[in-house]
């Protein structure tokens, strides 16, 4: 059976300004029609009564760890975690081993995804060879092999001249550039946000300014080069202001935020628990308020998880020895509903846009919409059902999350990729 009708859900598609209870008809993996009372004779039916039906969610910032770190995650397990979080597409960062800095690695990831992934996987290529920040990688051939953006995520390009050249190349190829903004000299050795708490705990700080100075530099260079520039997992109040400044100037600058940065502040950390250790670090409550406001007023375009799996033995160490990063795919929607929707910060269509239309626009993906003819990627979620996150039942290979045991109100119910139900809440 290759016909499916998703019936009686509240269909929210910001790309078409749709917000009404109706049906979605799918055939051969393509959206046919959105409308009321669609005749479902001869079709599979998914009853979405009482649920929200949205275009498939897109996470433009994940780490799938394959090739090279398959003990942490694989394309297959990461994709299953994505589906369990309501995501139908993910964009994976190039910090694999080897680094995705050439078309061979890109093709390998694309092939692994084709065979093993139950959601769409889009690779992001490295800006520089081995992400060493010196020589440009094979950007054009990676684009031909399927990358949708370039980034040296985690190892930001420190040399301003190199990043300028990379921006020029990206601009010429119409590839967006994503930067993890961190001046590595300012942040060197740091383990958490530099502030009163880091001072008290005797942990070295990562100053807010380490993010701010690179956002500032890159916005100025984006103006020089005309590149489509995207700030990854923004965390600082100053960065939000600078992105707003760039947008006001009409520059093609966009930004994303990760759920943990609008849900948690450094003061929420369980001291020395590495499940709260990530880059950028959890900042203080004024930053949490500022990034939330940035989402509300549209300065921030997208929510992206920065899903960063690490195996237990690497996270079960002295805080300063643990790697940075936490899981994100399975909790993103629940956290966003809690902090943004139930708290009445933003409307539901706006929340859906942050996961669909907006990230699709940032990386020019032909998804994030239920327009007829679009790939039939659909996320079905509930607003009020109570559930508890049990990371021990996660589809991910790793367990590093501060949200184990969190009680959520609303979250993913079913994930449909190309017209096929790939995940349903159990």
């Amino acid at each position: 059976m290759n016909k499916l009708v998703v019936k009686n859900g509240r269909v929210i598609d910001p790309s078409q300004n749709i917000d009404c209870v109706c049906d979605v008809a799918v055939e051969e993996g393509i959206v046919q029609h959105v409308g009321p009372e669609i005749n479902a004779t001869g079709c599979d039916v998914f009853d979405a009564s009482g649920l929200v039906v949205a275009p498939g969610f897109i996470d433009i910032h994940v780490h799938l760890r394959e090739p090279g770190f398959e003990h942490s995650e694989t394309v297959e397990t990461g994709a299953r975690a994505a589906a369990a979080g309501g995501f139908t597409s993910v964009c994976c960062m190039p910090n694999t081993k080897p680094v995705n800095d050439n078309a061979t690695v890109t093709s390998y990831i694309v092939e692994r995804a084709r065979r093993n992934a139950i959601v769409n996987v889009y690779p992001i290529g490295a800006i520089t060879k081995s992400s060493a920040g010196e020589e440009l990688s094979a950007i054009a051939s990676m684009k031909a092999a399927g990358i949708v953006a370039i980034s040296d995520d985690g190892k930001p390009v420190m040399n301003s001249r190199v990043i300028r050249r990379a921006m020029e190349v990206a601009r010429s190829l119409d590839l967006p550039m994503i930067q993890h903004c961190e001046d590595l000299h300012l942040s060197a050795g740091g383990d958490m946000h530099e502030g009163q708490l880091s001072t008290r705990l005797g942990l070295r700080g990562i100053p807010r300014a380490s993010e701010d100075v690179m956002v500032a530099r890159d916005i100025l260079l984006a103006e020089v080069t005309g590149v489509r520039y995207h700030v990854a997992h923004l965390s600082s109040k100053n960065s939000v202001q600078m992105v707003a400044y760039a947008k006001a100037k009409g520059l093609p600058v966009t930004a994303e935020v990760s759920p943990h940065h609008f849900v948690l502040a450094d003061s929420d950390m369980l001291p020395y628990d590495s499940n709260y250790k990530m880059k950028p670090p959890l900042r203080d409550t004024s930053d949490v308020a500022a990034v939330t406001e940035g989402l509300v007023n549209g300065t921030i375009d997208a929510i992206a998880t920065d899903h960063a799996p690490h195996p237990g033995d690497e996270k079960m160490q002295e805080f300063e020895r643990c790697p940075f990063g936490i899981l994100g795919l399975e909790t993103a929607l629940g956290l966003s509903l809690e902090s943004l929707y139930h708290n009445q910060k933003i409307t539901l269509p706006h929340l859906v846009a942050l996961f669909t239309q907006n990230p699709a626009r940032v990386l020019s993906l032909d998804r994030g919409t239920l327009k007829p003819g679009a790939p039939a990627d659909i996320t079905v979620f509930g607003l009020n059902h109570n559930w508890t996150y049990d990371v021990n039942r996660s589809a991910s290979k790793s367990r590093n999350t501060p949200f184990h045991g969190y009680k959520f109100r609303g979250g993913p119910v079913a994930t449909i990729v190309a017209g096929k139900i790939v995940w349903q809440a159990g």
Partner: protein
Amino acid sequence: MNRGLLGIEELSRTEIEQILSRARDFQPPPHQPFKRFDVLRGKSVVNVFFEASTRTRTSFEIAARRLGAETISITASGSSVSKGESLVDTLNTLGAMRPDAIVMRHAASGAPHFLSRYLPIPIINAGDGTHEHPTQALLDARTILDRTSSIEGLRVAIIGDIAHSRVARSNIHLLSKFGASIVLCGPAPLLPREMSSIATGIELTNDMRKAIINADVIMMLRVQLERQHEASFPAGEYFQFFGLRPEHVQLAKPNVIVMHPGPINRGREISSEVADSQRSAILNQVENGIAVRMAVLERVLAA
């Protein structure tokens, strides 16, 4: 459940007073041999030192023995740690041997706090990274109280590399709980502004003379080259601007107490004249270390 001693910050003033008062019972009277106590007979204490230490480790060993406990010390260089075993595995292995308490020093801030969430055995923190060194603050308080009746209202100058000092942090928490006024002083890169808000009653200055004027207590900190990850202050200028010399001591109250957690670097943070002067309480600190650690071990172990 895990009733160890991880830091001063989480202790109440009353709890600290109990330890300090009990420590007095363990101080040997002048010119007499120390007494042996039996309160911890049959108990065993493992000292695990992941970071080099002579005085603290020895002090804990003596304290445990004077209370009748058995004690074993393990240092990182002679243990499985140097063979690449993880902290959790090392401590689980030790835990399986069922000691009654673990005394632990580690170069990483929070290492004992992290372990105490997984290990049912009480952990006594003998210094974690740049975070806390609770028994040092307790022995410093005991030393001050041996010479003066109360800590409340005293003006205490803590001078040196504040940023990297666990001695400073533990002392700040203790002194603040007792209502002392605390002046922190050091080169600007080693004196984060946030230090002024980690407890109440703290002021900051980069001028050593300002810090010392009218001080009742001067605590000098060791210049910890091993914890500095960059050149924060020209080493050659350190003694000139932040080394304690007789002319500084004259700015303080006449009965000022000069302290140092040791080991001292003569001619770097303190001059020999001051270190060996009447005002110096450095050797009293060492002596009180044993008494205070006996009180801590008894509190943790004698259930």
